[in-house]
């Protein structure tokens, strides 16, 4: 009875013809690479975003020995400039807070007034802004660290693109591996496929059985590979935390949603590749 139950749902004997750990093992290795690429893409994206945000407010104007009237004059003058999107005087309390690690509680030191500027176009030259502002409010100092931050952000974005390209390549190689396995299965079960075809099985029915089996094998491999990537990713996430400004550490910092998508995607790649390969093979039968 058990034997009957085992085979009744598997008329092509695919559980035996397509077995072993070769295909799941290869898919596991590729899932590992995919998980690393996903984490890389997510990490690069976080870095790029953070640096981009920093770069947008990258220009600051300092007024040493400032009084409130001078600071207001400077803000008004900056807001009047066409290339300035936004100019905002930094709250004195916040400034004290920012400087606490270096200055303690301030101790009555005279702090400069600081104005943050957001530029409409980041290519505008901050030196020119400083020169024009100095005409109204002498003694201002303009700090522009935006340029290199922006270059770093661009680098992070390229890394992100590269990670997606790696992901696409991994998926393509996985599809090729599944196609080879499908052909091996077709060769092993050629007689059975021909018998079923002769009995009136539609291409969709035969291809569906192969697709289900190969999708399952690919998904199994992907679960193993993704699980194996987690410890490495947790360590990397820890190392990257200071750069990305992520508050979460270790396991909590991993892109779990994206990682959870790897096995279903592997199933889909296996399923679709097997469908395509088997249907094309069946075309040689009348």
């Amino acid at each position: 009875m058990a034997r009957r139950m085992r085979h009744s749902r598997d008329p092509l004997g695919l559980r035996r013809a397509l077995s072993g750990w070769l295909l799941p093992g290869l898919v596991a290795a590729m899932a590992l690479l995919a998980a690393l690429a996903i984490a890389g893409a997510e990490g690069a994206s976080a870095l790029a975003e953070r640096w981009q945000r920093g770069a947008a407010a990258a220009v600051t104007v300092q007024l040493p020995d400032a009084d409130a009237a001078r600071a207001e004059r400077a803000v008004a003058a900056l807001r009047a400039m066409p290339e300035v999107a936004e100019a905002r005087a930094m709250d004195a309390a916040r400034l004290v807070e920012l400087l606490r690690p270096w200055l303690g509680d301030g101790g009555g030191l005279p702090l400069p007034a600081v104005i943050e500027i957001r530029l409409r176009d980041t290519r505008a030259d901050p030196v020119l802004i400083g020169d024009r502002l100095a005409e109204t409010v002498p003694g201002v100092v303009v700090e522009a660290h935006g340029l290199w931050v922006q270059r770093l952000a661009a680098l992070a974005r390229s890394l992100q693109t590269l990670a997606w390209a790696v992901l696409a390549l991994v998926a393509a190689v996985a599809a090729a591996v599944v196609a080879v396995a499908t052909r091996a299965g077709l060769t092993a079960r050629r007689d059975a496929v021909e018998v079923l075809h002769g009995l009136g099985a539609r291409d969709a029915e035969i291809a569906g059985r192969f697709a289900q089996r190969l999708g399952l094998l690919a998904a199994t491999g992907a679960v193993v590979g993704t699980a194996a990537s987690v410890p490495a990713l947790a360590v990397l996430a820890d190392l990257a935390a200071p750069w990305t400004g992520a508050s979460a550490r270790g396991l909590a910092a991993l892109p779990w949603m994206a990682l959870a998508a790897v096995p279903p995607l592997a199933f889909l790649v296996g399923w679709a590749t097997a469908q395509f390969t088997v249907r094309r093979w069946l075309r040689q039968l009348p």
Partner: protein
Amino acid sequence: MIRFEAVGLRYPGGEPHRGTLGPPALSDISFALPRGSFTWLLGPSGAGKSSVLRLMHLALRPSRGEVEVLGLRTSRAPRSALPAVRRRIGVVFQDFRLLPYMTVFDNVALPLRLAGRPEASLRADVTEILRWVGLEAKAQSAPPELSGGEQQRIAIARAVVHSPELVVADEPTGNLDTRQARRLLALLAEMNRTGTTVVVATHDEALVARHPAPALILENGRLRDPDHVRDPFAEEEDGLG
């Protein structure tokens, strides 16, 4: 039911002539078999009997002419129309073509499962047909454990379990001794009595003598004296009536 009109068939050429067509396997074959008929397909080896049968169960399409099976004109029918017609045909092969890794029960149940019959309802039909061929006790055996005669009876059971309208058998007694061959013939004759159209290719003269019926005789890919068999088109009219 089955109508061949000026059918010609050429197989694709072998290695030295890949991409070209080989010599004609069948030439200018015309006949019609009415519903519910029993027909012998006779002729020496290589005369084209298997080719005619393969055209009948849609394992091939004609290179020329028209083959009509169960209302489907196969030469121009879309590929997707063939499976539905194949399910109404039972085929018995000389080499059985059972699936060795499945039990006898599952082999016989295959056509019903392909037709989407629920497990609960197909069990009774499979058991019934296994009893009919006398192999009910071997339902859980694997085909390789059975004798040639038993495997042939399983192949018959698989061919008829879904009550096909047409049964074609290619040298079905080739692997059987005389007693088993007689028993097989009795099974086919009984199928025919219940209304199934039966076509049997054989070179076993003794078998034909035991069950006299109209015969198509092939020689070198051509039909010998087709009018001698019957007036096909008149019979077809009767058969449909």
